[in-house]
């Protein structure tokens, strides 16, 4: 059992299959013509094309960030396919969806059709950049909620999109966000009008399918005064041998008294045991608590990707607004994660809470990077941060990089951090009661992550628990 801690993580990726669907694919590379192609394929208005081109021109002047604590070969942005879509079909019902696609969802365990209805989840399915089916749209429309693909929103609700798109993550925000703004092919749009509580959790399942197709999703969620919504994002990807770039942008806007809860379970392909072929995940997620008494809560369970670079953040502009970040990041084998959050307190009496749980196994490296910034006008701002790391085996690494900037004397900022290790003595204690190492680790991990899992919607929490167990199987044995 002395090697017990070495091997619990070696299980082949469960969702490693490719669905043979005919894709309409643009040539590799990026230039203004490709952007025009994307825009015209999407039948976008002129202002949208200009928006993209401006971002692209800005991107050309930018440098890829070098500060994250991750290492990877330089990405050749001209060797990426920026547009790939299943052949367009008019779908009137779910019966018309490509059966091959449905089987794919079946394999992934995505609750669609009746399963979606039973689960009470409306699924806006993203399949390689284009929304194939949007369910429940009508039921949501009855209460005035718009839930559709971002492309459709650009065409059908241009005023809303134009009013909010790029207001939280500006086109020039960072290297990957600018790239995304130039070439995003799809994503979700969600609008909850004044006073409406969304009657169900809204859910999008992402899945990368075509080899070497970059994925540039764009999500925009707006909750008007007094509105509330819980949004679920789940990811899984098939096994490929070449690295895949994923650079999504998610923008959330909460007006007075609005509440947005955004939950993610991320399980992109992480590469094989030597780290080949995994997804590069460079994501910009940010929420703006624009109105007074608004609240934005991010919950993420990050288990996949070769590289994760992701900082779901909150800008607390409105008085008494609240930002929350609950995160579990698990890395194994050669995975690298540099993830955390930024809480920017601008308004008075704003509060934020950060609970981050990092788990490192194998030879992986897991970094928490967080910024808490209290602006000069943020009277009585409060922040509480808790960053816990857990190491499995002797070759994994964990780092915590907390940045705290306080420009107002009335602020109260607390930071707590712990590092623990699953020790052989703990595993032996379980064993002496008849409990094997895999079950023991699963139990310890679930205990470690409980504060975060409690924030997830029930079914997601169950899924996340299973996922972590699956990810760590074989890491001890």
């Amino acid at each position, binding site marked *: *059992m002395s090697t017990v801690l070495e091997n619990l993580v070696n299980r082949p990726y469960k969702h490693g299959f490719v669905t043979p669907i005919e894709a309409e694919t643009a040539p590799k590379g990026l230039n203004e013509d490709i952007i025009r192609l994307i825009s015209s394929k999407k039948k976008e208005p002129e202002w949208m094309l200009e928006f993209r081109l401006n971002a692209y021109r800005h991107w050309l002047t930018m440098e890829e960030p070098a500060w994250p604590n991750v290492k990877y070969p330089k990405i050749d942005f001209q060797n990426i396919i920026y547009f790939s879509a299943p052949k367009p079909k008019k779908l009137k019902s779910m019966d018309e969806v490509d059966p091959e696609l449905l089987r794919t969802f079946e394999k992934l365990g995505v609750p669609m059709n009746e399963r979606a209805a039973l689960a009470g989840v409306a699924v806006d399915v993203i399949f390689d950049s284009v929304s194939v089916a949007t369910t429940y749209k009508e039921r949501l429309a009855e209460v005035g909620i718009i839930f559709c693909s971002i492309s459709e929103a650009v065409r059908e609700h241009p005023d809303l999109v134009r009013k909010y798109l790029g207001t939280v993550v500006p086109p020039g925000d960072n290297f990957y966000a600018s790239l995304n703004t130039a070439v995003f092919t799809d994503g979700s749009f969600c609008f909850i009008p004044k006073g409406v509580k969304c009657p169900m959790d809204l859910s999008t399942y992402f899945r990368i399918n075509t080899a070497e197709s970059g994925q540039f999703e764009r999500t925009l969620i707006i909750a008007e005064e007094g509105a509330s919504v819980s949004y679920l994002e789940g990811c899984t990807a098939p096994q490929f041998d070449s690295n895949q770039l994923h650079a999504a942008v998610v923008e959330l806007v909460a007006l007075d008294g609005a509440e947005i809860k955004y939950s993610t379970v991320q399980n992109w392909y992480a590469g094989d045991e030597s780290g080949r072929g995994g997804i590069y995940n460079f994501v910009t997620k940010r929420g703006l608590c624009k109105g007074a008494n608004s609240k934005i809560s991010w919950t993420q369970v990050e288990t996949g990707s070769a590289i994760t670079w992701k900082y779901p953040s909150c800008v607390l502009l409105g008085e008494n607004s609240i930002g929350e970040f609950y995160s579990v990041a698990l890395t194994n084998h050669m995975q690298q994660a540099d993830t955390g959050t930024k809480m920017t307190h601008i308004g008075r009496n704003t509060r934020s809470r950060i609970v981050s749980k990092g788990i490192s196994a194998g030879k992986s490296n897991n970094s928490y990077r967080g910024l808490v910034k209290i602006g000069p006008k943020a009277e009585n701002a409060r922040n509480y941060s808790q960053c816990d790391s857990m190491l499995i085996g002797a070759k994994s690494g964990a780092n915590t990089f907390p940045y705290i900037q306080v420009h107002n004397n009335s602020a109260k900022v607390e930071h707590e951090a712990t590092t623990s290790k699953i020790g*052989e003595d703990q595993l*032996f*204690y379980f*064993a002496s*009661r*008849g*409990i094997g190492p895999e079950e023991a680790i699963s139990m310890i991990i679930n*205990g470690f992550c409980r504060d975060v899992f409690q924030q997830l919607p029930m079914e997601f929490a169950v899924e996340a628990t299973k996922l972590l167990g699956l990810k760590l199987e074989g890491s001890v044995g």
Partner: protein
Amino acid sequence: MIRDGAKVLLEVRGLRVKVGGVEICKGMDLTVRAGEIHAIMGPNGSGKSTFAKALVGHPAYEAVAGSVVYEGKDLFAMEPEERARAGLFLGFQYPVEIPGVSNSAFLRLAYNTQQAARGADELDPLEFDDYVRAKMKLLDIDPGFLDRSVNDGFSGGEKKRNEILQMALLEPRLAVLDETDSGLDIDALRVVAGGVNGLLTPENAVVLVTHYQRLLNYIIPDYVHVMDGGRILRTGGKELALELESRGYDWIKAAA
């Protein structure tokens, strides 16, 4: 209680155990039959705890020679968790803290694992809650234990009570208690004794590793073994413990 023809549960022959490359147990022989209580005594460093840990398969304790047969099977061919499922139990001298894991969930998983190994019914959380609370009441253990993490922040005495609770729940065939009595006040000692006496049937057996005769006022052993230098030097009845109490260990060493 010693009975003629009682089934042999444990047969240790010529056992040598190394820890960190150093041989601590240097040829142990011991036979435990169903229904018996054995006390293993001896000064610090005599190899008592090493023997106990080697039995249950702690990875740092390597058996380098000799044999241990448990219920007719080669014990060292079994993984630690298999030994536990086969009814071997160790009460730890220093129970391990497992922060974040709820004690009630841990106890239930351990219990259900044992039940499954015996082909018996597993209990759901509600059923288990009733079951465990009844046991706790019987043993006079604070039900607040259930809401805490496994041994996390427990006092020394609370940890030992938690060990006894686990023993009572798992109903082992052979329980080895490694200095479970050390550092306990009189009340906790009664809990330990109550747990052991409540466990014992003609089908199972208990091995108590202890420094002191004190515990043996509450649990009457059938055999007392005195260890030193990694071996059992002398075996006697319960009166041997009293003799040790008054005379110390040196006279045994001198005699051997």
